[in-house]
């Protein structure tokens, strides 16, 4: 075991770990400020913010310090390394570095979108000098409005950390960004005619420690200190990126990735980042509707629940084997469980089917090489399966009926007259049912559609229940890899839309309020494949389903 001394605190480092001074200091709870360093990217040590004193503890106990300051990001630690980050010498270097970085910085914090979450603001406050000695006019570079469809560059705010350049070279592999000119004329720019429009481009905005690269989508929408943040999971594909949902006064403004090595790492794709606009769509179902002969009979939640219960009961009395429930792979584990148990309680012969699993193209692997082919070492994957919770819904179904029925076989069953009553729990924001498929539903005696957006099916339904988008409810998504992560309610739904879990609990007349952690514990007891959910609160990083199952087996001894 290697021991590293950080400001007189000792930190243990594992034998196979390769850490730099910044990471070792993090272990000791000491922050070494840095701009250009990022754990996922190569080290350039160009910002000079992480300069620290580094030394060596000799076997005889004496400590030999290096005479000069070293960039912490570029200096690996080993047994006996001594890092000093709070000496006067280091503080003077930090002050000087910040003064230098601010020389040509316009200090237009009031109009800058990054203000409030800006690395330059934070470090200036904590480590900076507080005044500038520059008397000459500042060097202003013209803004570049078009770096990409979603990205704009305020060139004068840039501190040339080159994180964005390295991201496009190393993570996306598309290498659109570069540094042009040299010295004080250095600027970030795109190659002419080759804008930064790759599917991971939005990440350069997050990576930018200052307000130079801004997202056009979020530009001037809100000041960041007004945003309230909830942890969630991106529902864009089965990767299940850990994200945060930023809202103010029930309006969703942006999604940002959160670090989760088990899910996706540090980044997220633009499809997920900008693809949430349907949450605020005009096409959202906003009120419950009960229809008879094409006329709306009721729009009241209180009367609709008993009406649905009666309608389902009547149809089961008529034909007990002709009831089916469709659960979309966009539903959470809790909702799938609630609907599955309700359907099986009503009739043990009820069929449970998974909604259409939307697969678009093939998995998109990054980084790409110059020909657009994925490189051997994958750093980010945008999955072809565009739904967040197929595995979770399937696990519930396997337990409840032993097999998973496809949606297409339900449609066939409907056209053959084998199914007369159908409950559809939707959630897919993109047309999950075609008009021709929807005409097959005409034969149904009872159709209940609980969904997010208006669809061909919801127009034919006898009962329409407005559900909640993923950002409007609590629950669990299980990603492609069996990682169960919690989503949290960030915003309220439009008008009378309700979280799906609450709708299903009231419909099933289940006692109590919808509380995801309690329900997870219940599910863990019923569905062995989801036993890992027994912890209730899944924490920030989620729980691996397999690992929890593996605990029961004897583990292999490693030498």
């Amino acid at each position, binding site marked *: 075991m290697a021991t590293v001394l950080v400001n007189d605190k000792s930190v243990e480092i594992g034998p196979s770990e390769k850490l730099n001074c910044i990471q070792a200091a993090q272990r000791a709870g000491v922050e070494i400020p840095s701009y250009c360093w990022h754990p996922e990217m190569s080290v350039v040590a160009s910002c000079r913010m992480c300069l620290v004193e580094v030394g060596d503890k000799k076997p005889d106990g004496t400590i030999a310090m290096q005479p000069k300051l070293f960039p912490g990001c570029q200096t690996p630690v080993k047994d006996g390394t001594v890092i000093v980050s709070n000496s006067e010498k280091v*503080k*003077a270097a930090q002050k000087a570095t910040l003064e230098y970085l601010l020389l040509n910085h316009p200090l*237009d914090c*009031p*109009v800058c979108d990054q203000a409030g979450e800006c690395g330059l603001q934070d470090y200036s406050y904590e480590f900076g*000098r507080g005044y500038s*000695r*520059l008397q000459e006019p*500042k060097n202003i570079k013209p803004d570049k*409005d078009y770096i990409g469809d979603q990205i704009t560059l305020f060139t004068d705010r840039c501190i040339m950390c080159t994180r964005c350049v390295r991201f496009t070279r190393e993570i996306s592999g598309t290498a659109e960004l570069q540094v042009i000119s040299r010295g004080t004329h250095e600027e970030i720019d795109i190659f002419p005619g080759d804008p930064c429009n790759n599917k991971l481009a939005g990440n350069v905005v997050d990576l930018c420690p200052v307000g130079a690269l801004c997202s056009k989508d979020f530009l001037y929408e809100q000041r960041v200190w007004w945003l309230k943040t909830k942890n969630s999971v991106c529902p864009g594909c089965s990767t299940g990126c850990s994200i945060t949902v930023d809202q103010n006064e029930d309006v969703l403004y942006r999604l940002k990735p959160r670090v989760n090595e088990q899910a996706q790492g540090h980044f997220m794709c633009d499809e997920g980042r900008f693809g949430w606009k349907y949450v605020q769509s005009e096409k959202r179902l906003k009120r419950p509707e009960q229809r008879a002969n094409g006329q709306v009979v009721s729009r009241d939640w209180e009367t609709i629940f008993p009406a649905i219960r009666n309608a389902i009961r009547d149809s089961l009395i008529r034909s007990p084997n002709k009831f089916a429930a469709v659960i979309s792979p966009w539903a959470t584990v809790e909702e799938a469980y609630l609907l599955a148990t309700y359907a099986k309680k009503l009739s043990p012969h009820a069929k449970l089917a998974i909604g259409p699993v939307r697969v678009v193209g093939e998995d998109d692997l990054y980084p790409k090489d110059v020909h657009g082919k994925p490189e051997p070492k994958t750093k980010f994957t945008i999955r072809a399966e565009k739904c967040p919770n197929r595995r979770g819904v399937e696990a519930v179904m396997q337990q409840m009926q032993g097999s998973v029925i496809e949606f297409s076989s339900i449609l066939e069953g409907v056209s053959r007259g084998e199914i007369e009553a159908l409950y559809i729990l939707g959630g897919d924001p993109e047309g999950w049912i075609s008009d021709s498929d929807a005409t097959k539903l005409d034969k149904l005696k009872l159709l209940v559609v609980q969904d997010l957006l208006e669809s061909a099916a919801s127009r034919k339904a006898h009962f329409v229940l407005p559900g909640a988008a993923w950002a409007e409810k609590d629950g669990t998504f299980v990603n492609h890899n069996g990682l169960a992560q919690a989503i949290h309610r960030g915003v309220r739904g439009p008008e009378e839309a309700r979280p799906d879990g609450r709708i299903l609990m009231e419909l099933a007349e289940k006692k109590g309020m919808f509380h995801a952690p309690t329900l997870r514990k219940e599910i863990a007891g019923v569905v062995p494949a989801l036993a890992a959910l027994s912890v209730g609160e899944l924490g920030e990083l989620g729980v691996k389903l397999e690992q929890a199952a593996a605990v029961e087996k004897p583990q292999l001894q490693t030498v």
Partner: protein
Amino acid sequence: MAINAKDVEWVEETPMNFWEATYLPAVFDGLLTTGAHVANNRTVTEQYPEQQPKLPTHYRGVHRLNRDDKGRVKCVACMMCATACPAHCIEIVAQDAPKDDPHWADRDKFPKSFVIDELKCIYCGMCEEACPVDSIELTHIYDLVGLTRQEMMFDKEKLLSVFDQTKDSGIDPIRTHKGKLGHASDFTDLHTLGPATTVRADDRSAKAVSSGVISN
């Protein structure tokens, strides 16, 4: 923060002497005040509205949005006023300045809409204090009336018209000509807060902080 017991000084009432104990000096003192008022026939009542009151220069009345020397709204839509406002009466929607319009060449951002609810406002002046470009100011207009609530929602145009109305009134002059984000972002005329090339001996940066560091 709780007050420390040792910091508290107790003051006892001074005991009255013989004359004070009769209360007669206090009675005559009071009669003297009454008599002075009886004898004085100077009017103190202001004949409002025929006679307009003379307000102190720091009076805080209706807001205005100042214009810069090009006639544009000075406001840069930084929303510091809305952040500082304790009554939450300011609603701003920002927009990026038209990039190809030379009129807006030096600006990144301006308010698309700027609405102050004058009924919610408590006229504390925090917005004025928070403004980095001296755009929002409180004027001496105090007699604000409206027939509907909607009328009391002052939008950008109305606030600018208050500026046009009051700038020449004498009591609400244009206080600064600063339309930019303060001297720190003023590229052409930069006043340094710290020493330029000569460093005072007592300045932190003048001291050698430890051996091996070259200062200045």
